[in-house]
Each structure stands twice: as structure tokens, then as C-alpha cells.
């Protein structure tokens, strides 16, 4: 195989939307893969006229590990721990999508206690993920040496409390390996429920503090209102999900529309805003904090007894033979719809697994909405879109 050619010609990126030429000089600037606010490895080739962005070419793939090919080589028992590495900030929901797809295809029953535990960790994970979102977004807008860092450190402090809960439950802080085909791997230890209640009470009180700190702040409002408006039609067409979709006026939440894993047993609201700008997305996520905490309280109050897996003991690591067929399991992750399209062929390994990452579709909307804003708004918009590049690149 010959040596690869030198850096490819991306000097003329084809641009989704380019604003009309107004006459001033155009500058091509790279917001490169190494950048304090790229949220991971992301390259945006911006074409600027003065301070205004007229076109964006998004280059991704710096974190590509080809999960889809990898899944064809790993059994259904081996892969869930790897699935968490797609959306590594919300690992619980990532694992859930894969495991649900395998269970539905193989028609494996999941015990009630396991379902409730799955929902509990998914909602706690949503709280932790939104804490990280708020912190990094404010840090992007406010500077790593400045007011943004203050909000970041407060949010990380809260996130650490939730991660402590996960650590006592599964042994890991970030990437868990908690789900397995047939149920969950770990049961709640002694005192976990009490600790959990204390933590979510504390987080709920602190969220009020952050809301007051941010919403009363004129600078915050100036930076976020009217910025990065995604219209309802664009939102549906591109297929963005989660808080982005709900902030643009579409009341589509998979936990409500297509309930999975016992979500139909719980009482919670789905926030919807119509403005479609960064501030609307912020408001949706702040309400989601509270709703997730509500769900966790309901679970802690009514956790049923029983086994935590329908394939306990040695069977949990044994091979699962999934019959021929296809299945698409979707989960409402903190960023949107995380889905696993699985095709089984009767063996212990999938024939084809397609991972639908929420951030991949969310990011696809950037070239449509960024042109027309200034460079400073690019970071505000990217932060409110909240991409995680493990999901984008897989």
C-alpha cells in the first residue's frame, strides 16, 4: 500500500449555506481540533467577513473508532461496556440502547426491579450530564479564567456527587458496564437510597441558585437570547433531538411518545419551548433537571423487590444467541435520541449494528444556523447544542 498523500485539499470546502458576498474581505479561519471550547475534537472551518461568519464546514471524525465494525466482532455480553464509550458523558443511556435492542430481538424478559433501576440511573445520568453541559457552556461563554470557570466549578461539584453515587453502585465513575442483556449487573448497596435522596435534594436546591445567578444576569441574556435560532421545520428535517428539538416547539420525547423500560409508570412533565434559541434550550434543560429528580424520587419510593437480571449468575456472561431479525431500540438520552439498529443472525455476535448517535444529528444542524452570527456566538451555539464527540464519531 503506497504512502498516503499529503494533507487533503480541504481549502475549498463545499458549504451548506453561504451568505451573499457583501464586499469585504473573506477570511478562512480554522476553529481547529485543538481548541479550548471545541467540546472534544471538532474542527470547524469558518469563513469570516470581519466578525461575521458566512459559512461553516464541520469536519468530524477525529474520534472515529468504528464501533459498528467492532460490534460485529464482540458478543452481546461483551459489547455493553464498549457501548458506554460512545456517549461517554451519559454512559448509562448509551449502554441501555444496545442492551434493549438485543433483549427485544431475542425476546428476553427483564425483571421489574431491573427496569426501575435502569430508569433511576438513566435519570441520574441525565442530571449529571446536564450539570456538565451547564458548566462547560458557561465556561465557553465566560472564559476559563473568568466568570465561566466559576459556574463550571460549581456544576462539577454537583456532578461529582452524582458520580459518587454511581461509584458506590457500580464501582466506576464514568464508564460503567452496568447494563447487561437481561437486566443489570449490580444491585443497590446498603444506604444507597438514603444517600441518593440527600444528593438529589442538595442538587435541587443548588439548581435554584444557578438559575437565579444566570437568569438575572443581563450579560447572560444578551449572549443567549435570539442566538442560534433553530426553526421547528429545520429541527424536524435534520433530525435533531432532545432539548434542542423541544426548545424549537416539537413536543417529542421518546420517554412519552414511545415509552420503554417502564417509563410509563412514572409521572413527569416534558418541557417544551418555542423560541428555538440558546436561551430556550437552556430553559428546557433546567426544567429537565427537576423532572429527572422527580422521577428518581418516585423510583426510590417504590422500588420493587426481585431479581436484577433474568439471566443471573454464569448465564450473564454466557453467550446470548439472538435469532435472525432486526430491531431498532431508541432511548431518550440527555442529548436526544440514542438508537441502536441491530440485525441478528442467530449467532452470538450481531450481523450489523448501526449506532444512531444523538450528537451526530444535532451537530448536522450547525452549518444551517451558524452563518449570520459572529464568532463569539459560535461558541455559545456549540455549547447549547452540547455535542459529545464519542457519539458523533463513534
Amino acid at each position, binding site marked *: 500500500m503506497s504512502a498516503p498523500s499529503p494533507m487533503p485539499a480541504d481549502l475549498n470546502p463545499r458549504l451548506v449555506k453561504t451568505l451573499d458576498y457583501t464586499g469585504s474581505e473573506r477570511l478562512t479561519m480554522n476553529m481547529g481540533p485543538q481548541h*479550548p471550547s471545541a467540546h472534544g475534537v471538532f474542527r470547524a472551518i469558518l469563513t469570516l467577513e470581519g*466578525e461575521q461568519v458566512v459559512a461553516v464546514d464541520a469536519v468530524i471524525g477525529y474520534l472515529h473508532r468504528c464501533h459498528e465494525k467492532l460490534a460485529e466482532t464482540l458478543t452481546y455480553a461483551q459489547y455493553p461496556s464498549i457501548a458506554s464509550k460512545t456517549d461517554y458523558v451519559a454512559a448509562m443511556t448509551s449502554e441501555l440502547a444496545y442492551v434493549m435492542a438485543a433483549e427485544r430481538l431475542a425476546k428476553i424478559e427483564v425483571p421489574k426491579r431491573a427496569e426501575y433501576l435502569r430508569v433511576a440511573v438513566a435519570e441520574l445520568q441525565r442530571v449529571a450530564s446536564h450539570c456538565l453541559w451547564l458548566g462547560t457552556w458557561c465556561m465557553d461563554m465566560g*472564559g*476559563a479564567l*473568568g466568570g*465561566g*470557570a466559576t459556574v463550571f466549578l460549581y456544576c462539577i461539584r454537583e456532578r461529582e456527587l452524582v458520580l459518587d453515587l454511581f461509584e458506590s453502585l457500580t464501582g466506576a465513575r464514568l464508564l460503567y458496564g452496568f447494563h447487561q442483556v437481561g437486566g443489570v449487573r449490580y444491585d443497590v448497596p446498603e444506604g444507597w437510597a438514603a444517600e441518593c435522596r440527600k444528593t438529589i435534594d442538595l442538587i435541587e436546591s443548588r439548581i435554584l441558585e444557578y438559575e437565579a445567578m444566570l437568569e438575572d444576569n443581563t*450579560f447572560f441574556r444578551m449572549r443567549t437570547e435570539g442566538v442560534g435560532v433553530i426553526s421547528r421545520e429545520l429541527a424536524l428535517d435534520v433530525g435533531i433531538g432532545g432539548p434542542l428539538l423541544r426548545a424549537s416547539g416539537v413536543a417529542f420525547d421518546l420517554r412519552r411518545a414511545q415509552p420503554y423500560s417502564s417509563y410509563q409508570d412514572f409521572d413527569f412533565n416534558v418541557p417544551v419551548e418555542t423560541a428555538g434559541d440558546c436561551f430556550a434550550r437552556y430553559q428546557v434543560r433546567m426544567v429537565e433537571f427537576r423532572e429527572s429528580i422527580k422521577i428518581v424520587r418516585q423510583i426510590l419510593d417504590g422500588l420493587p423487590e426481585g431479581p436484577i437480571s433474568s439471566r443471573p449468575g454464569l448465564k450473564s456472561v454466557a453467550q446470548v444467541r439472538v435469532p435472525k431479525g432486526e430491531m431498532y431500540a431508541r432511548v431518550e438520552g440527555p442529548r436526544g435520541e440514542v438508537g441502536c439498529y441491530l440485525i441478528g443472525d442467530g449467532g452470538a455476535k450481531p450481523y450489523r449494528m448501526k449506532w444512531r448517535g444523538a450528537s451526530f444529528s444535532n451537530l448536522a444542524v450547525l452549518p444551517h444556523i451558524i452563518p449570520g452570527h459572529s464568532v463569539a456566538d459560535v461558541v455559545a451555539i456549540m455549547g447549547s447544542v452540547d455535542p459529545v464527540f464519542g457519539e458523533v464519531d463513534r
Partner: protein
Amino acid sequence: MSNLHPALIGLISGGVLLGALAGLVAYVTLLERKFAARLQSRVGPYRVGPHGLLQPIADAVKLLLKEDLVPAEADRRIFNLAPVVFLVPCLLIFATIPFAPGLGVADLNIGILFFMAVSSMEIVGLFMAGWSSNNKYALLSAMRAVNQIISYDLPFIMAALVPVLLAGSLRLSDIAAAQEGLWFVFYPVIGQLGFLAFVIASVAAENRVPFDILEAESELVAGFRVEYSGMKFALIQLGEYAHVLGTSFLGALLFLGAWSGPGPAWLGPGWFLLKALGIFLLITWVRWSFIRIRVDQILQISWKVLLPLTVLLVAATAITIVLRGASGG
């Protein structure tokens, strides 16, 4: 002492001031870091020396030992000269500030005019740094900087004119002496508004958050100083902090009565330092609490809000003085 050649006196006092300044600026960075840490529920520098007191020295040694990089395509002479051109005005502003009645390097009778004029010179150094780095981020930042600093120097000067009018002199020691009875900040309405406008304009003119769009790390990755490392970076940092401190001293002098305070006269410089640090901490507090706003919003605030208000303020002060002169004596 007084029979020494005046040039020699100037040299010695300048040297003493520079030395004191270097030490003060270094420890002011530590103060800021500790203060910021407490705001963020953490401890700040703790391990280097007792409670982190040797941290600034460690930082200085580190910066001295770093490799001095010059980008290949950069304009070498301007690149090397820019930190110096940036630093010199920032240090020179201290020349006219009297730390006690009669204790200053050069108590010019156009003191405040000199201060304003010289402190605006740093823009030249800033732009030289941004331009010569051969880096789009640096260039973008330098362009924003020129825009912003020029826009905010006007309200800064207008706000500083209020105490000048009230004291009736451009000489800084006269302004300080005129506050023996009542600090200018306590003058009804005019004093408070003037002080507020002064602080806001100075924060913006020094590129501190929330107006630090030009070095917005999360967008422009350190802006105009992105290509600097080692001692040149240290010089730029020194210049920035010296400028902030200089404006804090000026603010303390113009509005907070400089060296007047309870206790014997030799405590005067101590009070002065305390007041200046108070203003510095106020600026720092704002820095660690707010997110930054976009450059077009910054310029809107300056031209549409701050400048008209400060012009009105100066006019009001002038009217007050005329009325006071007409009624009182």
C-alpha cells in the same frame, strides 16, 4: 538627599518604584488567585511555600526558564519589540502617582493628562503583538482590542474629569489634597456615578472580563498573546497587571481620597495601598462572576450608553461647581 543631582534622585526613586512595583504586581496575582479560589469553593495556590506565598516566585522562575519561541513567519523585530512597547506605558503611569504628599517620582502639574495619554499607548504594543504573530487569532484579537480600548478610553477620560473639575487642577497631588474633607466618591450623585463610570470604563479599557473579548480564551485562545512564551509572555502579563493596578491606584486617588484615613500621617501610603487593592478586588470579583459579552455589544454599551452618560456627568459637575462658586465663594 536634596543636594544630589535631580536626575540622580529621579533615577533612584524610579528604580525603587520599579522594584516595589514588580514585587507588588507579582503578589497581586497571588491575591487574585486566592480570591478567585475562594469564590469557587476551592483553596487556590497552597503548596508552594506556606499557603502558596512563594507561588509568584515559582511562576517567575518557570517563565524565565521557558523556551522563547518566535513563529517562523512572524515579523521578528516587531514581535520582539511588542512586549516592551506594551510594558513601558503600563509602568510609566506610576510615575505621576503620588503615594503620599510629596512622595512620588514626578508630580507633574498635568499629572492626570499624562496618565491618560500614556496608558493609551499600550494599544500600539498590543497591535504590534497581534500583527507580527502571523496568526489569524492574534490578528482578530488585536483588531478587536484597538476597537475596544479606543472606545472605552473616552468614557474613562470623561469619568476621570469629574474629580479634576471638582478639585480644579490636573495635578494628582492637588486632587488628593482636595479630598481632605470629603472624598469625591461621597459627593451626592456625581461622586457615585463618576466612580461607577470610572470603574466600568477602566475594566473595559484593561480588557478584563466581562469585556475581555479580545483574549477570550474559549474563542481566541489567548488572543494577541497566543504566540508568546517565556519571558516575553511574562512581560505582557506584567504589563497587564501593572495597568490594572495603576488604574486602581488612580481610582483610589481620584475618588477615594488617596492617602487620607484615620491614624497618623505616615500611615497614608498604607491606606492608599489598601484602597487601591480594594478597587482591584472589586474588579477581580466582577471578573470571576460574569460571563463575557460579544464585541458588538461591548461597543454598543460604550458608544450608546457610557459615553453619553459620562458627558452628561461632566456637564452636571461643571454646573454644580459654577452654582457652588456662585453661592459659596
